[in-house]
């Protein structure tokens, strides 16, 4: 062994950390979003791929530049901005102009996330906030839906007609869609990545199984919407259309579960999900907008501190899995004998 010329590194213990860093979590979220991404490229053609990639580039660029300007260490490598970029793209119609994608990512990354201090310090979900901004300010661009193109190489035809989503049909005329299966699988008009509830469900379940997101929020969120819809209409088709159409699954499995902006305690998470569900239904049934899931997440994010103070995390105390008294050791019959 040579003599140490270099100075040794000193730090507090532990000197070993899990490989499951924030970037690992975010990478898994991206994996969970992958099926919907592939499907969206099939349903809406090349431009869906283009919009998603451009959205991710904007979010990466804004994250990098804003950290640089603030003189802070770069955090691009934690991939959280990539997730934000993908989710924003997924909630935009495929006809959206590129500048609007830039506006959304700027608002999400720079204003909502970095101005509050970056990852872990934002008070609302960046994607939900940016999408709400777009929906309020640029409603016309945000509702120009086209029918699915069905083909990876398809480009949007010049004469593409603007169609309505199943949800707005339901709202306008009370008419439930013919083919619920198509809507569940994603073959319907809507935003880029939100149409296929089936694939989003697979992604969401993947995250829950890998213990990356907590099941309480999506279950209570979607459950509340289901119950309220059923009570309102006493009609299963109506309820299922409410569930499978619109942004509900994307919001429930990928925005509401964001741990930074949801309550800490397990009971708080359930309450959070219920608030999301109630707000979604309120906006859908009584508001002017046809879709309310993203607004609902935003509202619930803002209520989170209140939930946290009313339902705080408790000291769990020590619990042993198995308890043995001395008497268990007394009868001396070893199994091997």
């Amino acid at each position, binding site marked *: *062994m*040579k003599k*140490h010329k*270099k*100075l*040794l*590194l*000193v*730090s*507090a*213990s*532990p*000197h*070993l*950390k*899990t*490989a*499951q*860093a*924030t*970037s*690992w*979590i975010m990478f898994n979220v991206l994996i969970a979003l992958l099926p919907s991404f592939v499907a969206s490229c099939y349903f809406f053609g090349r431009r869906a791929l283009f919009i998603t990639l451009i959205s991710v580039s904007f979010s990466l660029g804004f994250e990098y530049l804003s950290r640089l300007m603030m003189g802070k260490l770069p*955090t691009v*490598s*934690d991939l959280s901005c990539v997730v934000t970029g993908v989710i924003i793209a997924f909630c935009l119609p495929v006809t959206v102009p590129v500048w609007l994608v830039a506006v959304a990512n700027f608002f999400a990354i720079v204003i909502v996330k970095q101005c509050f*201090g*970056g*990852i*872990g*310090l934002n008070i609302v979900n960046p994607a939900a906030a940016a999408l709400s901004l777009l929906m309020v300010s640029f409603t016309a661009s945000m509702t120009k839906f086209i029918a699915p193109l069905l083909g990876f190489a398809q480009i949007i035809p010049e004469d593409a007609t603007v169609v309505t989503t199943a949800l707005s049909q339901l709202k306008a005329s009370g008419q439930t869609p013919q083919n619920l299966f198509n809507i569940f699988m994603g073959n319907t008009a809507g935003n880029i990545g939100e149409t296929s509830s089936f694939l989003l469900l697979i992604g969401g379940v993947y995250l829950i199984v890998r213990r990356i997101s*907590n099941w309480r929020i999506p279950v209570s969120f979607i459950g509340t919407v289901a119950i309220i819809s059923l009570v309102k209409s006493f009609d299963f088709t109506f309820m299922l259309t409410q569930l499978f159409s619109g942004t509900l699954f994307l919001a429930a499995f990928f925005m509401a579960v964001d*741990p*930074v902006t*949801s309550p*800490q305690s397990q009971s708080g998470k359930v309450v959070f999900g219920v608030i999301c569900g109630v707000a979604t239904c309120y906006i859908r049934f009584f508001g002017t907008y046809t879709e309310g899931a993203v607004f609902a997440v935003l509202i619930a994010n803002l209520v989170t501190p209140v939930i946290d103070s009313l339902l*705080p*995390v*408790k*000291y*769990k*105390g*020590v*619990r*042993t*899995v*198995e*308890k*043995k*008294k*001395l008497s*268990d*050791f*007394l009868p*001396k019959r*070893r199994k*091997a*004998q």
Partner: protein
Amino acid sequence: MLLTFRGGVDAGNKSEFLSGSVINTIGAGETLVLPVPFGCTPVVEAGERVLAGQVVAVSDNEYGASLSSAVSGTVVKATASRITIENDGENTLCDRLEADDPITLLRDAGVTDRFGFSAAQKVANAPALYIISCVEDQPYMVNVQALLSCRADEFIGGIKLLEKISENAHIVICTTPDLSEYASKISEALMEDERVQFLTVSGKYPQSWPHILKRTVTTEESCEVIGTEELCNIYRVFKTRMPVTEKIVTLSGDCMRRAEVFSVPYGTCVSTLIKAGTSFKREPLKVVKGSVMNGDAIYNMRSPIDRTVSSVLTLFDHQHRYAGESHCISCGRCDNVCPEGLSPGSIIKAYKLNDTATLSRLSVSSCTLCGCCSFICPARVNLPLILRSAQLMGE
């Protein structure tokens, strides 16, 4: 059946003690620096001549144990915290320990566990149950493995001795699944013994901590945990009637091809041990005295090894660096792994708000600073550092 506790982390097994390897002995260097253990007072003065095995510091209370010099020589310096001894190379032994009473003998011999608690006191408590901890729960450390493979006879002798000293006590030997090979050999030797039982416990960190092991195994109040090395030392003391002056230390880490185990005289400095290592493959970036989960990173290679140091690790991997520490993302993983049932994530939030009421409601004082939460944290937050400050704030 695998017994376990709630929480804890699986830090993985990153080093192996090759079967057939030996426990190497390191000769005492020119000077030995003995840190005076907490709660002990030096009984020698500068200029005094000491013999090998002579007591140089005694414990003020019954939980600690006295400390003996590993060599004969002259005391150069003796302060309340350190005793420096110049080795005269002659290794003149002091008189054998005379005491007949086992408790006095163990106390004079300074047998302790790796936390510095006296074995004599454990025996004096006359527990109804002894738990022998043959648990390896951290990466890189192979002390137990080495002892069970090289000193199995001493281990078995120690068990027999314990049975003789404490007549009514039962003994439970806890091993982890990856030590089953060694455990089966020992259980063959103790087959006939009615008072000894074997249990397999999980290898999750911090399974080897006495209070966790107790919690895993039994609800019995009157029980004492005895470490593998401690047991071997008890046997040695009864056999040789000489005090314990050496510590089994693993030299390992990702800068080495394999783990090496040494028997090191108390007071040897870390650099001497590292020089004795033979399987280095690269220069370490960090040297850790103690275990990877809660050892201290040292900057001074002359730092001495005492009876609480079970391993010296030479680390390189970038994973060990600070890089990537961000703000807590509230993921709740730390809450899931805390063996004490705490919510470290909420504690650090309350700490940042100076909220002492919440801190005490969250029972911050029960934190043992084990480091599980920090291990699992995806945002790389250094929780124990903050938790310690929070404890001080809560007091």
